[in-house]
């Protein structure tokens, strides 16, 4: 059964069919949310919100693009809205010193398993730099990087989601990499 057929059935009242779409696309939405929020619990909550929003506006899905493209757009907008609306998240992303919670430390340690504590601390600091640099990218560059690196999408697919051309996406990715290098080298100099 195709996505369009499933959507047709849901709109006719068979809402249980929505479970098929959730099961099929949950990883895609979760990864996108993770790329923007970097926190599993927040990403889980946002993934749920994205699917509920998609269900509620299913009648507005015209089928011009693939359902996944439509879902990506909702996920990206929801993530950006969450970051913009939540001052705490904005502060946490701007000053990533706040984010050295237990989970993050565990993740950092898992990367550096077997190293001495001093090296782990230095690496932990580097992780903060990198995350800060990623989060401080301009919005469009950030969307392109998240869709490219987290969702492994091609430039063509990213262009469709962002409603732009492949050339523009290529330029965005190049600029994002350049900005990241600049930010990382500036942090090193500091």
């Amino acid at each position, binding site marked *: 059964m195709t996505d369009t057929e499933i959507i047709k059935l849901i709109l006719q009242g068979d809402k249980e069919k929505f479970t098929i779409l959730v*099961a099929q696309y949950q990883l895609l939405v*979760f990864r996108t949310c993770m790329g923007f929020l970097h926190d599993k619990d927040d990403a*889980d909550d946002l*993934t749920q919100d994205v699917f*509920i929003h998609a269900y509620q506006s299913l009648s507005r899905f015209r089928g011009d693009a693939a359902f996944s493209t439509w879902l990506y757009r909702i996920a990206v907008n929801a993530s950006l809205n969450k970051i913009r609306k939540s001052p705490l998240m904005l502060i946490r992303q701007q000053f990533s010193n706040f984010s050295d919670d237990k989970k993050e430390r565990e993740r950092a340690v898992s990367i550096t398993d077997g190293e001495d504590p001093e090296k782990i601390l230095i690496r932990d600091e580097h992780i903060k730099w*990198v*995350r800060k640099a990623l989060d401080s990218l301009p919005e469009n560059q950030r969307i392109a990087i998240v869709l490219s690196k987290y969702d492994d999408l091609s430039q063509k697919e990213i262009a469709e989601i962002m409603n732009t051309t492949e050339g523009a996406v290529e330029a965005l990715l190049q600029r994002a990499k350049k900005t990241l290098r600049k930010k990382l080298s500036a942090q*090193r100099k500091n």
Partner: protein
Amino acid sequence: MQKRPFAKNYQLKEKINRSAVGKNKVLFLTIKTVKMNCQLCQKEFDAYRQGKLPHDMMTQVESHLKTCKICAGIYRQQILAERIIKGEKELQPDPFLTTRVMAQIDKLDDEQYKSAPSFIKVLKPVLLSTSMAAAVAFGILIGNLPYSGSEREKIPVELTLIDDAAIESVDVFANE
């Protein structure tokens, strides 16, 4: 000796036109040289990591990373960034996500259903009493309709002339 850089990818191909020593022989030599700096090295990080660079370029980037601490640091951070992304990508969503989503959808649908009766609660008695009043009024209207003149004309004239008082009672025939 004349230097003519013409190749892309920061490789200078120099065509050296040298007069050979003795006997008017001309010898053409092609020498490849690569000029590496921080900017170029950083630009080739991705290709270097993926092993997509030509052998001589790989060597150049490698030797630059050994000597330049800044580039080496940025390269390490780039690797770290990729590891962070890889780590985050490996995370899986909540296994009960589907259940949670469907429960939330059911809840929303219930709320919509509950919010609808509150409107109907007001409208229902109004509609019911109005329809009952309309039915009663229609009945009264039907009952009070006068007979039309055309129906009266259909009664034969003979019948209208019959004098009820002059007709003998049926009991008279019964007694006989």
